């Protein structure tokens, strides 16, 4: 088990958004988290990516308790997060966006007296850009990219941190079907090449059933089912949640 949550709870006042969720993910797995709107999926992923503080419960990564760590500590442990709404450095170029991540990864954040055109740094950056297929757009301003390319860049920035666990919040939201498929293919290939474990939230069931190894279903803040795609497809309770009786 590379990743585990134990009785994770998040309350917003008297609203319980995440209700005692126990999730376990194996190394190298691609896990999808699905559920109808309001099921608590985004809250859950915000909790495990340390954007929110849990009301109670524990989170473990590689057997280390990361429940109380601030966001900037978890990336060095190997957890990367892609946001639902791309958080890019909009006025910087594609190259610079990834470069920022590389600088941080290489521990050069406080290097005030080195040059930026450090050859090593540039090659790291270009490698990442190539792996996400954006090397031709290296000098474009991030803000001028198409939405789909921005999502790629988002993934690229996260990858530059060389995570072992990658979390994606609705990676194909807002892109066309074919672009979404390309994106997920990219993710799956990268997962294989870089031995990543992936957790992703999705609404698009085709994507989910095509790309996930295992699926977890959330409903009203609780984790109600986990299993292989075939199992979930025929799971009566899941049917009930989504389709009613």
């Amino acid at each position, binding site marked *: 088990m590379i990743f585990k949550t134990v009785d994770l709870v998040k309350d917003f006042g008297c609203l319980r958004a995440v209700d005692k969720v126990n999730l376990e993910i194996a190394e190298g797995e691609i896990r999808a988290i699905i559920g109808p709107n309001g099921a608590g999926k985004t809250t859950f992923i915000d909790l495990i*990516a340390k954007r929110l503080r849990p009301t109670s419960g524990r989170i473990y990564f590689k057997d280390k308790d990361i429940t109380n760590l*601030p*966001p*900037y*500590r978890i*990336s*060095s442990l190997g957890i*990367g*997060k892609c*946001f639902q709404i791309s*958080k*890019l*450095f*909009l*006025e*910087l*170029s594609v*190259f*610079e966006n990834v*470069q*920022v*991540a590389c*600088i*941080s*990864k290489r521990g*050069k*954040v*406080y*290097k*005030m*007296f*080195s*040059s*930026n*055109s*450090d*050859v090593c*740094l*540039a*090659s790291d950056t*270009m490698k990442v850009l*190539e792996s996400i297929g954006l*090397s031709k757009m*290296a*000098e*474009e*301003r*991030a803000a001028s990219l198409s939405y789909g390319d921005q999502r790629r860049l988002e993934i690229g*920035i996260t990858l530059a*941190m060389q995570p072992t666990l990658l979390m994606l919040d609705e990676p194909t939201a807002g892109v066309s079907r074919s672009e979404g498929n390309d994106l997920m293919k990219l993710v799956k290939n990268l997962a294989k090449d870089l031995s990543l474990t992936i957790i992703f939230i999705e609404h698009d069931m085709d994507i989910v059933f095509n790309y996930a190894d295992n699926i977890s279903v959330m409903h009203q803040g609780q984790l109600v089912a986990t299993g292989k795609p075939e199992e979930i497809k025929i799971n009566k309770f899941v049917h009930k949640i989504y389709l009613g009786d």
Partner: protein
Amino acid sequence: MWKALVKKRFFIFALIAVVVLSIVGPILPRYYTQLLTLTLITALFATSLNIEIGYAGMMPLGQATFYGLGAYSFGLLVIKAHLPIFPAVICGLLISMIISVIIGYLCIRRNLFIFGLLHLAFNIVFITLVSKWVNLTGGSSGFTATLRPAFLSSYVSFYFFVLVMVVVAYAIIKILVESPFGKIAQGMRENEERLNFLGVNTKRFQLVLFVASGFFAALAGVLLAMNNNGIYPAYFALTVSVQGLMMVIIGGMYFFIGPTLGALLVTIFSTEVSNFTSYWQGWLGVVMVIWVTRFKEGILFRRQSKASKKIPAIEMNK
């Protein structure tokens, strides 16, 4: 690190500027040389501000605090503690840095808005503190004393001294902003949250940036004190902070040389206008109002971002 300075366009431009200033300074009539000296000092102040504003996206609304801190730490060490000039400069700058660490630590809180207000609040505190603590600071009249070493007492030699100091300071700042540190700072400006998720402790980073910015403002303050041979509460005035902001906005905050241009314009404007009328601040206000409402960006504005820089020659596998 020298690569940052030796970038062709910048280096040539800088070289020309320094040469021109060196030649022009001594031959101008005294009034203009002194004006130039003051402009250089103000330009350093404005550039220090831009470290936070243009590069890191922070909002230091009360930078006069550090201007004054530099001047007063230095000045008081000379006047009250009778230190010789240059040791006083060094100790004064150190004291200013220590105080700026404390202030920075207290200011860098939850969000940008609170930071700006706190920064302003500290400015107000210091204004009041300096005017009222008569025993230490000389109160509203401050202190007038010789704050230059003997060899700098002529206006020409002082001009060259300031020129050298400012050039060196600019070189350091330029190296800073072109370094990985500077790149992360730009990331701060664009998306702080993302930076947090990329493993950067943004609060700590902001503090380091804050202290760096405060250091250069304090240096400018020291030079100011030397220039005027005195330390006065007016150094801390809110209007000084606002004028600094104005210089950054007018000159263009996304370019290294922007604030310097702004400083040039504002200083020349205020000095010339104040020769005509004692209501020069009102006219400055007019300029501020017109500028902010008409020209959203500065003189040097981004048509496209600075992002279109050359990527170092690496074999790109096509």
